[in-house]
């Protein structure tokens, strides 16, 4: 199994484990259930519009909702908004349900919810529906040079 995300991480020398599952539904909840991983440790990758044609990834625990207000504050912009499916797919080159922050078509800045850093391992999409990566949150920060901040509601 190889995806753009996996190639990206290999190139950076980052360790991870690949877990595949039968993809019947989009979203972190289904993925977590399918791989037998806790939802709060299963990351959902959201694409956010920061205005002026600037976008960012927000990496969130699967069971929490993004605070757009907090994210806007962290990114020093007036307003942040979720992008629709088509825009997310256009910016990342991935299909919704398989969006990974690694190896995306556009190199977007990334903010990761600080609460995720307390876990030894988290699950994150590998850039293909039905494929997840298990890795340390610290390695995610390293691979993407993420900003770590409180962005949940």
């Amino acid at each position, binding site marked *: 199994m190889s995806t753009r995300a996996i190639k990206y991480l290999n190139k950076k020398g980052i360790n991870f484990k690949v877990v595949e599952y039968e993809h019947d*539904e989009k979203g972190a909840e289904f993925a977590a259930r399918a791989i037998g991983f806790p939802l709060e440790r299963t990351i*959902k990758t959201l694409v956010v519009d920061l205005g002026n044609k600037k976008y960012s990834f927000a990496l969130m625990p*699967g069971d*929490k909702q993004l605070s757009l207000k907090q994210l806007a504050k962290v990114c020093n912009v007036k307003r942040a908004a979720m*992008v629709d499916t088509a825009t997310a797919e256009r910016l990342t080159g991935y299909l*919704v349900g398989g969006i990974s922050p690694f190896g995306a078509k556009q190199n977007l800045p990334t903010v990761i919810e600080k609460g995720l850093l307390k876990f030894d391992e988290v699950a994150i999409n590998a850039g293909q529906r039905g494929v997840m990566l298990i890795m340390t949150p610290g390695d995610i920060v390293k691979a993407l040079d993420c900003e770590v901040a409180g962005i949940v509601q």
Partner: protein
Amino acid sequence: MVEKVLKKDHKIHAEMTVLNIVSKHRKTEAVFKNYDKKAGVCICCHALFESLSKVALRYGLNLEELLEDLEDAVRE
């Protein structure tokens, strides 16, 4: 059911995903929040990529009522 709720002048329809609704109409986030209790989960956390019809079916919500409330928020 779906046909019944597809009204021409409506901006929201049953086959739109929660993500596409909140991304286009920010005010609808508050409507979903109001339905969290009825659904028993945070809809925007757990069902962001699902269509309204699926959300209603899965969490036992009244689809027509939900659509009306979302439309009201969009019209505001």
